[in-house]
């Protein structure tokens, strides 16, 4: 996997994250669930920033950044608060795994940026009631 390919995959993941977080936020009552609503908004803002940074990184390599899809599949049952939390948690786990591969396929300052993005996603998992993992982003070690 080249650095450019890994960057494009990360960008595609962030496009999906921005879309899904938008949907999760729309499903969440700010009055009934203020803490969850704030957490979703913060995550949405962070993923938008990461998406923009990735777009610039791809452009800097002389390539056309991957475009967002018109829509992304949403998990079912989002009328329930727990389903929203679960969807956000799974989203962060997916982003952590994607950024872990970007770490493997990059070097220098770009790798450092990927480590930071991986760590942010791993820590955000805890906001959505995730539990600490031994190696966030590396599922092949999950049962060790």
């Amino acid at each position, binding site marked *: *996997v*080249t*650095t*450019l390919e890994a960057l494009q995959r990360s960008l595609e993941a962030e496009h999906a994250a921005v879309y899904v977080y938008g949907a999760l936020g729309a499903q969440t009552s700010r009055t009934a669930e203020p803490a969850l609503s704030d957490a979703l908004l913060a995550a949405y803002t962070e993923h938008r920033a990461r998406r923009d940074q990735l777009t610039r990184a791809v452009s800097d390599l002389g390539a056309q950044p991957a475009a967002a899809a018109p829509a992304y599949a949403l998990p079912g049952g989002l009328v329930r608060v727990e389903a929203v939390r679960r969807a956000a948690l799974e989203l962060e786990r997916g982003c*952590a795994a994607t950024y*872990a*591969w970007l*770490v*493997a*396929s*990059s*070097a*220098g300052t*770009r*790798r*450092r940026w*990927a*480590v*930071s993005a*991986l*760590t942010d*996603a*791993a*820590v955000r*998992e*805890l906001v959505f009631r995730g539990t*600490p*993992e*031994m*190696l*966030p*982003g*590396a599922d*092949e*070690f999950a049962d*060790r």
Partner: protein
Amino acid sequence: VLSGPRSVPTRRTALGGALLGLGALAGCDLGSSSERPSGRGASAADPDAALVDRVVDELDELTALVRRVGSRFEVLSVPMTALGSLHAAHRRALAGADEAPAGTGTATVRLAGPADALGRVRVREGQAQRRLVDWSVAAESGALARLLACMSAGVAQQLVVLPRGVGTRR
């Protein structure tokens, strides 16, 4: 700070196996990024061998510290056990064994009380987390860089759930 017996050949051999496994999972040679071809392997010329040794030594020191704190202050036994399990899992993933050699660790650190001990653990774990980031960036092998980055993220998660003070949950 005491250092345990060195076991370089074992670590290199185990690392080579671990990284081969990661490469197979990825279906590609992760060590060959377009920015920095690695060409690494579990050989005497392995550019990452010394780095792996440093990481294992760091894990052994952390393990010794959290074991000592957990056994001396019962109120901290639960979070120290969690940290100990984390470091053991990291050592296992990196070097193929989760036990540090006998005599390894921070034997000379004085712990004034549970609050002081907790503070020392927090500072030391935070330092380790930053070092893992630096070591990830320094690694020649992409697969090793990924593993070290995931280890750093695991420590970052534990720092979030580590109690802020004795008798508090976070």
